[in-house]
């Protein structure tokens, strides 16, 4: 399918043109030469920095099954300087519009997989909210179709390449250098994600038990919002800003934060091309519909590396990383200018940490500009492949929660090992017609 982006590339080859002279725009790229984008799902996250106000491409449209969100979105888009953008009746009309180059998928997670596949099949490049998909089965399918359609895909989290990592006072780059260069010794690494910031502070993303169904507002298309998820009676708490508390749509606080936390961990542990083989769970049995809390989830890789998710807050004092030779990495503390390292002889002085890191080779450069990815077709660093792997950590964790126990996983075949109960959660059918749209 020839789309506007291909046309622009050809036009650029023949000699650029613009409807509005570039000088009129004070040096900015003329609108007709900019990449264009549209936002699917105009709830809370659509307002954040990488969506509505993002200046790397021109916002030309949006859609949402809630008319109030559409009205709000149009007004916000105008205030943000985008002028009058187009309101699509539904996302399928948006995907059919050849003037849209990139779609921002800002829906709840139960839609991410299906919409990503449909967008790829429609010739769009994709900027998708996290978690990438609700199940491993959906993640596999997204990878297949994005690759087959040669689309560019990025996930909306960024800590593997920019900004300080939660609670550590540093980017992940020096931590990756520590791991990659063997400063912790040979052998498995134990990683505790409670050390910087656990998950207990996010347990307000929990559903309400014993809801009393409500009359759905006439301005809201509940059936479309549900999409691939099973139909259940409407209640406002199951939607919009509080959907995370319900298994049909997401996975609670883990669903919200897991890829923000776990993707940079996966990167700094150099595990971008594999997945855990064992998942252990400690916590209460879960409600079948409503997400509760967990105490501890441990993800173990084939080489023995462990990632421990702290849900009950008891691991806050633990080091982030502990290696075979007794070396530990801690977050930056008071009076320290860098992440802290400790070995059998005690704490390294800050100067030693700084000097050691400066002497280490830097990690390989990453592609961190998605608009450049779209133009040059060079995959973004957090793409459908790397994103699938970190999302799989989240998917495995919530399956363990719903099973109420641990299980084993095959990171090559991408299924549970001799565990049909786990596979039922890892691979879930969708409501039609979305099953056909996604899986054919």
């Amino acid at each position: 399918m020839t789309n506007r982006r291909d046309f622009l590339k050809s036009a650029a080859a023949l000699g650029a043109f613009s409807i509005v002279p570039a000088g009129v725009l004070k040096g900015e790229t003329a609108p007709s030469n900019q990449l264009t984008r549209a936002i699917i799902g105009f709830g809370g996250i659509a307002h954040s920095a990488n969506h509505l106000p993002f200046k790397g491409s021109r916002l030309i449209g949006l859609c949402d099954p809630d008319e109030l969100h559409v009205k709000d979105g149009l007004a916000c888009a105008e205030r943000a300087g985008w002028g009058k953008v187009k309101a699509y009746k539904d996302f399928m009309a948006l995907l059919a519009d050849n003037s849209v180059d990139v779609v921002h998928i800002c829906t709840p997670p139960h839609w991410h997989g299906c919409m990503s596949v449909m967008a790829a099949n429609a010739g769009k490049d994709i900027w998708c909210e996290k978690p990438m998909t609700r199940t491993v089965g959906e993640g596999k399918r997204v990878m297949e179709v994005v690759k087959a359609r040669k689309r560019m895909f990025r996930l909306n989290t960024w800590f593997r390449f920019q900004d300080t990592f939660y609670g550590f006072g540093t980017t992940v780059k020096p931590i990756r250098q520590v791991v990659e260069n063997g400063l912790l010794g040979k052998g498995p690494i134990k990683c505790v994600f409670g050390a910087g910031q656990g998950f207990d502070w996010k347990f307000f993303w929990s559903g309400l038990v014993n809801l009393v169904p409500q009359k759905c507002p006439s301005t809201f298309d509940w059936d479309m919002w549900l999409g691939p998820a099973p139909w259940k009676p409407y209640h406002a708490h199951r939607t919009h800003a509080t959907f995370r508390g319900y298994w049909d749509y997401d996975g609670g606080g883990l669903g919200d934060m897991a890829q923000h936390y776990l993707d940079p961990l996966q990167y700094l542990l150099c595990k971008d091309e594999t997945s855990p083989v064992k998942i252990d769970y400690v916590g209460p049995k879960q409600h079948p519909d409503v997400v509760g809390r967990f105490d501890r989830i441990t993800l173990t890789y084939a080489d023995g590396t462990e990632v421990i998710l702290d849900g009950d807050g008891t691991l806050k004092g633990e080091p982030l990383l502990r290696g075979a030779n007794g070396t530990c990495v801690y977050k930056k503390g008071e009076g320290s200018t860098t992440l802290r390292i400790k070995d059998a002889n005690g704490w390294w002085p800050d100067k030693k940490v700084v000097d050691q890191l400066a002497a280490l080779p830097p990690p390989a450069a990453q592609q961190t500009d998605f608009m450049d990815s779209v133009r040059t077709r060079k995959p973004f660093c957090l793409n459908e492949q790397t994103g699938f792997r970190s999302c799989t950590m989240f998917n495995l964790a919530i399956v363990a929660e719903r099973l109420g126990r641990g299980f084993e996983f095959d990171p090559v075949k991408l299924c549970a090992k001799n565990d049909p109960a786990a596979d039922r959660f890892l691979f879930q059918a969708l409501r039609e017609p979305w099953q056909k749209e996604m899986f054919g």
Partner: protein
Amino acid sequence: MKKALIGMTLLAAAGCVCTAPVEAEKPVETATVAVAPGKDPAAPYDDYGPAMASEKGNPMAVEWHNQNAAALDAAVKDDVLAAFVKDDASAKALLAQVKDAYRTDAKAAIQIAAVTQWVMAKPDARKDARMTWTKALMDTAENAKCDYVKLFCLDQVRWCGCPCPKLAARVEKLGKKSSKPVADMADLVVRGLKK
């Protein structure tokens, strides 16, 4: 804790979600959201106020877990779960607690889900128990007067139903004579059973 949780819920309902990096130890949601000019992050969507106000007495699952931890632990021990599937009457007595539209007692709902997972944890070793449970789920779904009970039971069959043609046919038949929501769920279940 409850006020904080409800406060956080209302804050979340206003569309404030933490996506920007947070250096502080405490969660600071609204301070780090880049919001389009003119949008008040504290302004809730008009339709949420009455909905949230009506839920003030309703606990979140996290709160419920915290308040009922000991009782829940006792209610889901293996021997307790096994007793529910020793015969048809015991299974149906548990499933009789499924009520219309989200009204099922939380402990009963969790026990039902736990039984589903108990029979599936060792699907071959607990084959009789699995058959008893699946039959009870289907009987309850077929005899239910309200759609929600049918949906609830079919949802459990989705996780533990045996992949056999007889069960798939039974689910399909229920779907064909039911409303669209139930038919859709039946379709999901059949596709899951056919894997």
